[in-house]
């Protein structure tokens, strides 16, 4: 709140009066075209509410109507759509402020959806818009400002400050807020220079932390949406709303919401310390658990544990994170996983020597840029975490991509000459940090690494004569998206959880490793297929409504284990039934939740098919995610693998070479994965080529003519 805003050139302006939010909906979406400067309001229709709900559903619906069958990620008609959902912005239930971002991805060429905290989505709704749809490309860098209280939307010439989110984000709030109270109800979306120079760009959604009096950022990491953002020459989106109140979402029945909200707060108060300790450690609690179950990615997913894991586990982060503050990414989240390291002094890069607040690290970052790269140094993890955010780079794709590079380096595919001098041995944090700065500057090997694993593989084959099969086996990407950070090798169900997805291998569709591998609750293909129907649908629903998944199962009622289906957390499912019904006034059952998601999920599948992907072959996964690629890897778990050869395949491992054993196991596991595809496609109502049938589309009420026309090409 320094000097008044320096006047900037206004390129387009639109005035409106923010409608009151009714039962979770503002009733209109905002369309902004950066090419021709069109700004207008579009009504939220009954079909949108009934079939697509909000959030990711609205994103998919709007994007579908904005693009053509052959639209590429960098075509002007590609869009970035941001929407929270009808329950987004309630303050009483933990995890109710998420936004979903949808676009065509520069990594996968199909639709990506990425969920993110921060205040933008709820404040956008309270400024009068259920979604913002950004299309076109600006001629010069611009910002888009949505000022709800003033009833004014502008496309403005961007300020002459660096695109680095750390600098730009602070500049924006200083110049957009006239007094301290204004800070509370402003949120920005920005990317960074790394998003310009790579395909793994992320978006930073800001929130003003009133307790710390500090600006913080949460990331929509997956799929390179930050890259699309900068390709459109957007520097930032800024929203201002009026004050947020406990009833700003104007629910149909507030009492139902407060009842379950207060109950969950109490449950977290009573049991979080005994369960996951999210309030102290956030998702970092997972690091040691994954290590202990041999599921923590180590050295590009070759191994699942490491002797040095205690150096980066939850105990370490509990010491680093500020304790005792409410660390929700939206108001009222008492699970509060959004922890920060305060007063971290940067060791490298353009902000070297500055003390900064690091948002995170979360589990995925610790495992991705840490253990998976053989880096067991918390300082290096914080350094990478900070600069990934500031540069607008996804920590998951950066971590998994760097781990791939390191294995290529150790396998001789790369050497110092090819990397421009970077020594990519596992564990070399200095090289990883230098690579990140190269991405930020758009220089050197960072430009190659920033292409993502799929395009790096092509490049290494083309330029360096690398063995394409080896790279295909070890490159942990599917559909073009880098894997998130769980080793799925010994869980067929989780291989499906990663592979049989719409957007690519991100665990937000299904996380079945414990059910399958540890508890053996999914012994048959049918059981696996049922889980790969139910859980992706269940988890999709969070992103339709504005909810976060974590308060569903990172805290559980004390008697949950005694319920009929503990993995579903039945009491919490009922909470969500109450919340949705209470907000929208639309009475639903738990079965309705699955049906809502199924419509949107199948629509997304058809969308991928429309864009030329989304069929059986596109659900293939690299062998590294199914089993041991190398002799060394086999031998690290020889007992397990020998047992499978002996008991399942009737072979005698004692009389086989390790290479023969690797080959026999591979043949078996690849066949299993194909059988899993058959079972899952059948359960989902798809053909054997993964195409939803017309009957399925009819059953789900999404048999719109243009949707049916897409699948009919493949039936």
């Amino acid at each position: 709140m320094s000097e008044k805003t320096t006047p900037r050139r206004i390129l387009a302006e639109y005035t409106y009066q923010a409608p009151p939010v009714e039962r979770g909906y503002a009733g209109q979406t905002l369309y902004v075209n950066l090419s021709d400067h069109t700004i207008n309001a579009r009504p939220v229709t009954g079909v949108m509410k009934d079939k697509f709900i909000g959030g990711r559903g609205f994103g998919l619906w709007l994007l579908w109507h904005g693009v053509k069958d052959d639209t590429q990620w960098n075509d002007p008609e590609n869009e970035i759509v941001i929407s929270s959902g009808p329950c987004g912005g309630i303050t009483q239930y933990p995890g109710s402020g998420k936004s979903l971002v949808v676009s065509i991805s520069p990594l996968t060429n199909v639709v990506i959806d990425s969920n993110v905290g921060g205040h933008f989505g709820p404040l956008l709704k309270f400024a009068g818009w259920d979604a913002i749809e950004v299309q076109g490309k600006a001629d010069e860098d611009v910002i888009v400002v949505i000022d709800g209280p003033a009833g004014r939307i502008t496309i403005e010439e961007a300020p002459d400050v660096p695109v680095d989110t750390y600098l730009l984000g602070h500049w924006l709030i200083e110049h957009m807020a006239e007094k301290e109270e204004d800070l509370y109800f402003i949120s920005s979306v920005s990317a960074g220079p790394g998003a310009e120079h790579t395909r793994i760009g992320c978006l930073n959604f800001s929130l003003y932390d009133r307790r710390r009096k500090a600006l913080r950022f949460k990331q929509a990491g997956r799929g390179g949406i930050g890259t699309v953002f900068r390709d459109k020459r957007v520097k930032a989106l800024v929203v201002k709303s009026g004050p947020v109140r406990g009833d700003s979402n104007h629910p149909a029945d507030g009492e139902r919401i407060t009842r379950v909200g207060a109950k969950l707060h109490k449950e977290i108060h009573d049991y979080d310390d005994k369960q996951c300790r999210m309030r102290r450690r956030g998702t970092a609690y997972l690091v040691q658990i994954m290590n202990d179950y041999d599921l923590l990615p180590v050295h590009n997913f070759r191994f699942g544990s490491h002797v040095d894991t205690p150096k980066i586990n939850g105990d370490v982060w509990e010491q680093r994170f500020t304790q005792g503050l409410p660390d929700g990414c939206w108001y009222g989240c008492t699970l509060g996983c959004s922890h920060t390291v305060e007063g971290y002094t940067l060791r490298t890069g353009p902000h070297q020597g500055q003390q900064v607040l690091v948002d995170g690290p979360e589990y995925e970052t610790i495992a991705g840029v840490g253990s998976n790269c053989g880096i067991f140094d918390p300082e290096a993890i914080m350094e990478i975490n900070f600069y990934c955010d500031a540069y607008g780079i996804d920590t998951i794709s950066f971590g998994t991509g760097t781990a791939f590079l390191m294995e290529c380096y150790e396998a001789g595919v790369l050497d110092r000459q090819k990397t421009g001098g970077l020594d990519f041995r596992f564990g070399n944090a200095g090289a990883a940090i230098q690579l990140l700065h190269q991405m930020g500057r758009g220089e050197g090997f960072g430009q190659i690494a920033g292409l993502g694993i799929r395009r790096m593989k092509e490049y290494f084959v083309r330029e360096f004569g690398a063995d394409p099969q080896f790279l295909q086996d070890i490159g942990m990407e599917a559909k073009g998206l880098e894997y998130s950070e769980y080793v799925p090798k010994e869980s067929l169900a989780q291989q499906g959880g990663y592979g049989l997805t719409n957007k690519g291998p991100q665990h937000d569709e299904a996380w079945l490793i414990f059910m399958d591998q540890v508890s053996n609750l999914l012994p048959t293909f049918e059981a696996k297929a049922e889980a790969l129907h139910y859980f992706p649908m269940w988890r999709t629903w969070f992103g339709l409504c504005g909810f976060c998944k974590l308060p569903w199962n990172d805290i559980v009622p004390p008697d949950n284990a005694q319920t009929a289906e503990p993995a579903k957390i039945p009491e919490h499912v009922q909470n969500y039934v109450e919340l949705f019904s209470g907000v929208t006034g639309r009475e639903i059952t738990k079965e309705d939740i699955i049906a809502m998601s199924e419509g949107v999920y199948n629509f997304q599948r058809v969308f991928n098919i429309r864009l030329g992907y989304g069929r059986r072959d596109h659900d293939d996964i690299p062998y590294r995610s199914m089993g041991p690629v190398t002799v060394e890897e086999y031998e690290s778990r020889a007992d397990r693998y020998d047992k499978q050869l002996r008991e399942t395949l009737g072979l005698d491992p004692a009389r086989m070479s390790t290479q023969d054993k690797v080959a026999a196991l591979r043949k078996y596991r690849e066949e299993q994965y194909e059988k899993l595809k058959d079972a899952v496609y059948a359960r989902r109502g798809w053909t054997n080529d993964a195409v939803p049938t017309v009957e399925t589309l009819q059953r789900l009420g999404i048999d719109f003519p243009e949707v049916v026309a897409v699948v009919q090409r493949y039936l």
Partner: protein
Amino acid sequence: MKVLSFDPELCVGCHICEETCSDTWFKVTDPAKSSIRIHDDGEGSSPSPILGRGVGGEGLLSAAFCNQCGACIAVCPTAALYRDKNGIVRIRKKQCVGCLSCVGFCPYLVMFYHPDQVEPFKCIACGKCADDCPADALAIVEVEAPASPQ
């Protein structure tokens, strides 16, 4: 600091305090809008560990009301909860976003809420209920401020 205290030996269970409280602060007679709740089953919360009194025992009535411990202040995301100069924990309604974190995290379950109002409410030791208590079971007493005020 001055806080409310309760003597279970004297309480006759008339619930007049609840009526007084809701009358005072909500202008209605509704125990669901009272910041003090008398429990007839002897199983109410133990609202006054600072005082070492007010604990319901067998055959006794108990009272639930805020003892000004301040645990709620730490969980408030907007700093709407604060301790005033007299040591009393209060809510700045204008700053409250109605998230009810404080309700779930009150160790004594004495941060209350009601569907008619988005902000929660609590005892601020105004003393009206003590004035109206026919059995002198309630009183405003001087105690030491909490050792580590939030």
